[in-house]
């Protein structure tokens, strides 16, 4: 059962990682992906909007799919919302398994699918007061599609 959090607050990477193997001796691998806000082109903040209710449901389904495809001993997805500054974390994906391939592949799968199948929208704010909504990238659809058919 995946641990899924959608929250404005920051998260504790070390505590989240430790909790996936605490008190057990069957976990041989923990893979993680940490997404961080970049400050390209004078970006001063990202504002992340989401669809409360659907977001948790969508992430839950993505995590279920990961657990169906790989023998995971644990899985954590934390996605922040609200205003995030350059250098601050946006998203954390953690996957644990007995063996490394399952953890690494499931982690890459989760972040690829999160990018294309979870209802979040990013607005970029720039120095000078301008802002724009981030447009979806074709390369994200491509990354997500590589998990279809294969598995």
């Amino acid at each position: 059962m995946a641990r899924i959090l959608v929250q404005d607050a920051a998260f504790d990477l070390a505590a989240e990682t430790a909790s996936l193997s605490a008190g057990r001796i069957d976990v041989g691998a923990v893979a993680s992906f940490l997404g961080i806000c970049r400050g390209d082109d004078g970006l001063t903040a990202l504002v992340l909007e989401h669809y409360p209710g659907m977001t948790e449901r969508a992430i839950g389904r993505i995590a279920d799919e990961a657990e169906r495809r790989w023998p995971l001993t644990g899985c954590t997805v934390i996605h922040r919302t609200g205003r995030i500054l350059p250098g601050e974390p946006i998203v954390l994906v953690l996957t644990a398994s007995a063996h490394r391939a399952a953890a690494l592949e499931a982690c890459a799968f989760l972040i690829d699918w999160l990018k294309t199948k979870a209802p979040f929208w990013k607005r970029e704010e720039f120095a000078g007061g301008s802002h724009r909504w981030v447009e979806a990238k074709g390369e994200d659809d491509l990354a997500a599609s590589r998990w279809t058919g294969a598995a």
Partner: protein
Amino acid sequence: MRVLYFAWLRQKVGIAEEDVAPPAEVRDVAGLIRWLAARSAAHANAFADPRQVRAAVNQDFATPEHPVAANDEVAFFPPVTGG
């Protein structure tokens, strides 16, 4: 029927949600979009390029052909950009 708007669709429509009662001939997501677009200039502007609009019915992604009914929660938004 509850309709929700997110991201630039919310900004263009000018509201985050509204309760609507479309007529019986509005049977699917595509029909609902056409009906909503006729409600105001702001709605028309938000739905001007349907290729940029995605939908969810009762919190699941839905195609234009997906049926909609009186008690549904229907959301409109641009392609997602999380992660």
